[in-house]
């Protein structure tokens, strides 16, 4: 017979006439993680709020309180607006393409008769590379004078198609996005693949008997049944898009000019490179609220879609 166990009892907390008794075993398990999280995440976040109201340069122990001046500068700064625009473009680009390619790869791997494991591993390999390493590899590939792409174009007699892939301000942001999509798609593919493999074959077979074509089956059965994976993947790619750093640092240093400077990169440059730790921290706080806002909106939208489907 099933026994209804209150949630707090499952969590190891027993309530006896308003007296809370905490299980020591549970405490032993969550204690270290809680301590670490508090020391390395919670406390720095709280102290960041304080530093964002100062003009601290990161060196001088005499920290001066300047009120809302950093925030005022952020919201009037052309450079911040440009970084915000770049961040939005990059996030939208990678959210769409990472998911589209990941889904296509997952469908491909799911449908192949042989070599399923090989393809799954092959598509996943870029995920294993660090952002720095993948940035270096693609920087060499994109190089105008010595890179693989331009050399190939020259060798096939299409020298006129040569581009300064990471030097042309109109192209660079998208080229960085391509690297991020290349690196990230394999990860999302695994999530889609797991979700696809949980789609009941009975439902599929029934739809075939009813005369549904492949597109209809995909649209009306597969998509609704893997909508949970969409929510997870879009949320992850949104967060990853908002905090891209490695590839930009290695490939473009935010340039040429300001064409690939994102909010995170501006934060880093201001705080560490330009001696404005207080201002950089204020950018970090603004970014935190942007992520919370976008994530909340996206979650609401996707959850609603999930329920509708």
């Amino acid at each position, binding site marked *: 017979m099933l026994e209804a166990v209150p949630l707090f009892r499952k969590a190891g907390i027993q309530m006896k006439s308003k007296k809370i008794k905490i299980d020591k075993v549970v405490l032993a398990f969550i204690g270290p993680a809680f301590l670490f999280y508090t020391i390395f995440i919670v406390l720095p976040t709280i102290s960041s709020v304080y530093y964002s109201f100062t003009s601290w340069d990161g060196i001088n*122990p005499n920290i001066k309180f300047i009120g809302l001046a950093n925030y005022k500068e952020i919201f009037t700064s052309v450079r911040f607006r440009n970084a915000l625009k770049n961040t939005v473009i990059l996030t939208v680009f990678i959210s769409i393409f990472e998911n589209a390619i990941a889904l296509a790869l997952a469908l491909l791997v799911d449908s192949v008769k042989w070599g399923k494991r090989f393809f799954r591993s092959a598509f996943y390999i870029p995920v294993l590379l660090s952002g720095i390493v993948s940035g270096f590899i693609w920087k060499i590939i994109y190089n105008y004078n010595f890179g693989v792409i331009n050399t190939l174009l020259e060798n096939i007699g299409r020298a006129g198609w040569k581009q300064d892939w990471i030097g042309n301000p109109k192209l660079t942001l998208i080229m960085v996005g391509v690297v991020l999509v290349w690196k990230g798609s394999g990860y999302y593919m695994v999530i889609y693949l797991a979700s696809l493999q949980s789609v009941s074959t009975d439902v599929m077979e029934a739809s075939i008997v009813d005369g549904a074509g492949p597109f209809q089956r995909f649209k009306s059965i597969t998509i609704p049944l893997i909508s949970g994976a969409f929510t997870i993947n879009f949320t992850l790619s949104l967060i990853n898009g908002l905090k891209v750093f490695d590839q930009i640092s290695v490939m473009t*240093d935010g340039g040429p000019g300001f064409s690939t400077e994102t909010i995170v990169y501006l934060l880093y440059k201001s705080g560490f490179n330009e001696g404005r730790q207080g201002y950089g921290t204020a950018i970090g706080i603004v970014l935190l609220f942007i992520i919370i806002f976008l994530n909340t909106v996206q979650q609401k939208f996707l959850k609603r879609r999930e329920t509708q489907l």
Partner: protein
Amino acid sequence: MKKRWITGILCIAIAAGMLGGCASGNSQETTGSQADSKAVEATEPGKQAETEGEESSLISEPVQMTLAFADGDENAKIAITEIANRFMKKYPNVSLLIVPSNGTAYNEFLKTKSGVGEFPEIVEMRDPAGYVRAGMLAPLPAEITSLLQTTAEFDGTVYTAALAAGDTRGIIYNKNYFEENKLEIPKNWDEFIALCEKIEDLGDMAPLAVGAADIWHMGYWFYKIYDDNVLSQDPDFIEHCYDGSADWTSPEVLKTFEQLKQTFTYAQNGWSSTPDAQMPTFLVNDMAAMLYSAPYMFASIESADPDFEMGWFPVADEEGTMRLVGGSVPGGWSISAEAAENPNKKTVGEEFIKFFFAPENYAIYCEALNAIPSTKITPEFNRTQVMDDVIEATKNADNLSVLWNNRVGKDELPPDFRNFTYKTLIEMCQGTKTVETASTEIAATWKTAMQSFNPITGVGIE
């Protein structure tokens, strides 16, 4: 009871794991330092066996000090390590632990070290102003400053001893190509532009190699043209920008930007994504005829192709006036204020700096880096013809000045202004911004920056 036992064992295991992790982290760091210090000590020829030239009277008890420098340049790393070895050989009871800064981003390395309370005790400073204001550097005594030609003062006090004089920039060119095509060394700016035009018309290679993927590389050309057009008219332009009597939309500034834009039309394709490190490749592979750079590039070009015939000339302004980069820079060897509180460490730190500048030791550094000596006594070292040309040019220059971002006092730039300017100028040279837009944006940024940093009013430097 059993539960308590399990809890206890788990707690001990977790605590041991955590401590183990911490310990291994520490040990790694220590090993890193020790490895480097051992690397220093290991290369000491016979520290224990050979005692010739040893002097132990410097300090009464053994002292260990940390030493940090920008080790991105392999030549600098080798030269400074060798001098540190010699110092330890001379003073056996002194141990210098070289703290590796692992190449690039040296300023960030120092900031991190200061943040975690591990600021090096003998340290090469690149941008010392902030550290001087934070009270982290100790004043240097007259017996060190008297060794140098010039020193940078912060409110009348010297905190740094420049490792070398300001890197004089000039055109490094393909000598064979110039001879084959009977190209002549230009005497003024207009002749230089005509030369670029002529090389472009020949169509064999790009007239100029530019590596603006490294943002500081922009400073080479910018400062040259800015010095010729703006500083020649107003040597205290930055100070006057602070007090409001000059600004970034003046005709001289616009002319600077125009000339810069014109110059970059002669750069190789892909200049904005090409790093400075690839510059020798362009020269030695006949992809570009000229490169405007500093003498540190000579060694890289020689190692890229020992047979490459390299020439060097400085570029004059429109009137033929030779305004070059040179003189003492504010960066250099410093001793941390914390180390200076310990009399033994203060003695060792000061002695190391004096030892570094002793001609027989300083020659190692100057030769390895093609550095222009900053000392009054010029050390004897093997110099190439091009290096002789550079030294000769600095002696005959009409004006020598320190780079705009190396100035202190009322000419010190706001913290983020240099990079903003270079990035804006890249966009201007690429054609995504006009000269006027670039000038207006830079002027607007200056006004914003001045609100948080102004040496005239004291804002941001208290």
